[in-house]
């Protein structure tokens, strides 16, 4: 009625409005057609596999010979599988090294680089490992850790220290791998932290200075509380990636020596593709998902105590 009238009068917006009733049906069809490819992909490569893997985890299953329903037996077996528990123990040690170190180092570099000349250059340089494949990083570092001619021990010799066999010794291997992961992640987190730092209004620091605050006090009372959402994001991410780490230990040590660097994902891969115990490996995958879910939920609920969202 009034729509038709104004359509006749000819304004562009009015003409568009007049078309809405006819286009609603067409939009429904168009919308679903446009998202159809993505839905197909999600169905085939995410939704179906998700359900399928849950079913597999209740079976003893390999692609060729075995297919038997075993109920929760896979899960029960996992809880007594010493190697499986060791992989999680290793992941905990790895988390205890990489998460705090990555945070402190990434934040220090971000704070230090924030106002200095050549910031763009350093930012680009630190970011380089992020665009490099984990495999390339792992290959280079496995040579760099060589006891005799490796880069690390060669540098240590300059200061008169004879370095250990980093990757060959059970005592050092996990630490060595963790350090590579921190090294590789620094640039990425520096960028994220820098973005957080740039969001803090300069006036806060100016006001603090007028009130006689030292740089250290500004850091503790202004920077860190206002950076807490970014730090929260870092920890969320780190708590997930810990359990899915694969490439670096796979290439550098293959989980050795004597399982010292065995990680959950590495073991899952071995069970599924070396031993073809795909049911058992699926149970491992679901334990992994559960661990990630529980830890993330815990982290989110604890965050209310320390993450500061009001600016």
């Amino acid at each position, binding site marked *: 009625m009034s729509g038709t009238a104004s359509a006749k009068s000819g304004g562009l917006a009015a003409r568009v409005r007049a078309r809405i009733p006819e286009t609603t049906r067409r939009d429904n069809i168009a919308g679903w057609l446009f998202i159809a490819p993505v839905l197909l992909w999600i169905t085939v490569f995410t939704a179906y596999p998700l359900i399928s893997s849950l079913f597999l985890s209740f079976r003893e299953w390999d692609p060729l010979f075995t297919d038997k329903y075993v109920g929760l037996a896979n899960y029960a077996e996992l809880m007594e599988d010493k190697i499986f528990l060791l992989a999680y123990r290793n992941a905990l040690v790895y988390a205890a090294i990489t998460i705090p170190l990555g945070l402190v180092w990434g934040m220090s570099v971000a704070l230090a680089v924030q106002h200095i000349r050549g910031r763009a250059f350093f930012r680009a340089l*630190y970011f380089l490992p992020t665009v490099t*494949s984990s495999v390339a990083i792992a290959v*280079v570092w496995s040579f760099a850790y060589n006891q005799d001619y490796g880069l690390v021990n060669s540098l240590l010799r300059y200061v008169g220290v004879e370095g250990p066999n980093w990757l060959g010794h059970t005592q050092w291997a996990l630490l060595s791998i963790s350090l590579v992961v921190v090294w590789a992640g620094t640039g990425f987190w520096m960028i994220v932290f820098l973005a957080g730092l740039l969001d803090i209004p300069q006036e806060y620091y100016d006001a603090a200075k007028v009130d006689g605050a030292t740089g250290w006090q500004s850091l503790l009372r202004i920077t860190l509380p206002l950076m807490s959402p970014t730090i929260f994001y870092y920890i969320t991410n780190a708590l997930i990636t810990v359990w899915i780490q694969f490439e670096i230990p796979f290439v550098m040590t293959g989980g050795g020596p004597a399982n010292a660097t065995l990680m959950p994902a590495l073991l899952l891969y071995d069970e599924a593709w070396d031993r073809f115990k795909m049911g058992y490996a699926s149970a491992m995958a679901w334990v992994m998902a559960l661990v990630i879910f529980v830890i993330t939920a815990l982290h989110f609920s604890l965050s209310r105590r320390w993450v500061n969202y009001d600016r």
Partner: protein
Amino acid sequence: MTAERIANAQYRLPTLAEVRNQLFPVIKYALVVAGGIGTALPFIWMVLSSFKTNADIGRIPMHWFPTEWIPQNYAKVFEIMPFARFYLNSIIVGVLTTLGALLICSMAAYAFARIRFIGRDIMFMLILATIMIPWWVTLIPAYLVIRQLGWLNTYQGLAVPGMLNIMGIFLLRQFFRTIPPDIEDAAFVDGASRLQIYSRIVLPMAKPALLTVGLMTLMGSWNSLVWPLVISQHESMRTLPLGLAVLANLAGWVRHETGALLAATFLSILPIVVIYMFLQQYFIRGLALSGLK
């Protein structure tokens, strides 16, 4: 004159705060430079060593520069493995994955940004929620799907699953929402179809966003190990990271080919590093926005 002034000046020890204020910028600079050297050294060491003989690499104490610069390692790369084939595989898989991802993700993103259809918001939430599924959970059945399709050891098997880039959908949708709707409305009134509006108007305007998402996808594909590891069982279908990883794991003989392996590693990262040097801001923006790498 100067001497007089110096003599007349009253000297006192600087206070602690003054020392700190003087020292702090120096410490900051030292930290950044030290970290920068630490970041660069393994790369520099890799490149320098790739021009050394293996005996030269093994020398103790280490010499930074080759005693004699030799290019032979780069020739040897192609002898100890079908390196050219790996390179070709990586290029084919990378290009296929990227083009496919740009197509399906931008289509979905356009629908979520612009078309009003029943179930839009719930579908968007559902699709976004799939990021939270750890991909090790879906890996085994996804591999079985590929196996069932007869796609093991094929380019489509390597490339097709990687075309789904949820973060890409999210980023493109954000970008499409910033395009003024008037332009589309005008075309709509002129009788253009949705498909025409999407392909002729929206996509050309979204070039920077498409570049960001395309680079993210390309980099993910170029660097990925796990998926090729389970899909490519034949040596001829290995991608670069897989080829390198397998070779690096054959400890026995390959340790004597350190120079060649380092040369291969250098060659394998070269394309992405070069692209990164030219298109830095797109990489940094894409990765900083995407969060989960």
